[in-house]
């Protein structure tokens, strides 16, 4: 069953074409890597799916529904920035998510916060960058969403924290759901990816299952990425 349908989507910023006729589908239960170098259009594509930008042409559907209020109930999105109100405490943030998302599992979130030894009454602004990112991830992964979209969740993070983040994603990811994860740190994620989409200068240059790619090219995804995008 198709969960995400992106059909002939194009997007420009002024004269700069960021996405050019992008088409792909994601089916239920898959972990899909959205791979590409900086400036390839990954974040723009993710923003379009999350209705934070408007495409110039084409269409995007989630579970057959055109993006809007209803599709936001289905997507759990982690942007590549600190997007939470820094003046709020962890507890306030948990209640905020509980108030707005009916699929938010507050018990699960509290359990994960406890494992990090964090005080629920601690304000976000008093935390380190790494801890803030972990809290954001916990909030996003504590939803029982149909589609998780994570934009560079392990970018700019030390290897130990990277392991924690990957483990949190995999152990809390609802198996009925799909996960679209954008990254250029492929070696850390390669083993968990079912499919990959290679994006280069706004165009999809490869969209296939990881097993098939390895079989066809005799290369790991990481090596293929280096080959495809070498400067």
């Amino acid at each position, binding site marked *: 069953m198709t969960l995400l349908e992106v059909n002939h989507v194009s997007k420009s*910023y*002024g004269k700069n074409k960021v996405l050019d006729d992008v088409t792909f589908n994601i089916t239920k239960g898959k972990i899909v890597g959205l791979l590409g170098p900086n400036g390839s259009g990954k974040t*723009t594509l993710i*923003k379009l799916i*999350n*209705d*934070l*930008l*408007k495409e110039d042409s084409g269409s995007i559907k989630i579970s057959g529904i055109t993006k809007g*209020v*209803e599709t*936001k*109930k289905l*997507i759990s*999105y982690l*942007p590549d*920035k*600190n*997007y*939470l*109100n820094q*003046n709020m405490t962890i507890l306030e943030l948990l209640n*905020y998510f509980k*108030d*707005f*998302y009916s699929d938010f599992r507050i018990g699960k979130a509290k359990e994960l916060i406890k494992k990090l030894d964090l005080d629920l009454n601690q304000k976000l602004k008093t935390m380190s960058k790494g801890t803030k990112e972990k809290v954001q991830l916990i909030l996003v992964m504590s939803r029982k969403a149909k589609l998780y979209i994570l934009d560079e969740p392990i970018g700019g993070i030390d290897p130990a924290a990277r392991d924690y983040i990957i483990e949190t994603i995999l152990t809390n990811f609802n198996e009925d759901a799909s996960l679209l994860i954008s990254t250029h740190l492929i070696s850390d994620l390669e083993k968990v990816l079912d499919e990959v989409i290679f994006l280069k200068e706004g165009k999809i240059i490869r969209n296939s299952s990881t097993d098939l790619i390895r079989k066809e090219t005799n290369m790991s995804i990481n090596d293929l990425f280096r080959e495809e995008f070498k400067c």
Partner: protein
Amino acid sequence: MLKKLLKYDLKNLFKSLLPIYLVTLVVTILTVILNNLSNKSNLFSTLNALMIFSYIIILMVLLIGTFFLSIRDFYLDFTSERAYLVNTLPVKKRTIIASKFTTSLITMIASMVVMFISFLILIIGNGIWVSFAREVSILLNTMTGEIWGLLILTTVLMIVMYIGILALCYFSISLGQLKNTNKLGFSFLAFIGIYIIYEIYFTISLSTIFVIDPNFIRALDATVTPIGSINVLMTIIIVLSLIFTAIITPITNYLLKNHLNLE
């Protein structure tokens, strides 16, 4: 969803406003104390003058600050990193906008209540409460229905005009966010442009009324009292302001719903 948004929006704004409220009350009390000591020495008299000046400044900060914080809150929710959270909530844009209007209005009313309490402290602290209460009582007894009407209309006009200015600012921000760079600068430019249109709209609308019915003012003068004339004029301004708000707010909603630009 509106109730939930209001809960968080109000909490967020009051977190910033409470320190201003506290400073207002402290400055008010200090003004009262220094005013009572001002006869004792030249130093106290000088300090009292300075404190009165500070008091006027803090009242201005209270009102302008409340307005500024409301606009800043809207701007951040549609252009900053916070926008990634607000705009991925399963909430209609018009609900978010309605929450912003309501919070801005509630916080402005709260700030005016703080200002009123501050005045009362000044009056009581300076020992003029009895004479003040007597004057108010006399005023209330002499007030006619027309004056009551004027007071009510003035209050309604202030609320409607404040909502109108908020709508104008929100519309400017919704236009400014369309630009990929310098969204704040473009919002400000849009505000200037729309404000000119706003003024032209009022001038043309009022002139049109007089052109359509040249006897309007004369008829007013002949049939109603001066206060009655003011009341009619205020009612017209209220209606014109409501029409303007009713035109630009759906456009703001359209732009934020269909052309949100978090590049």
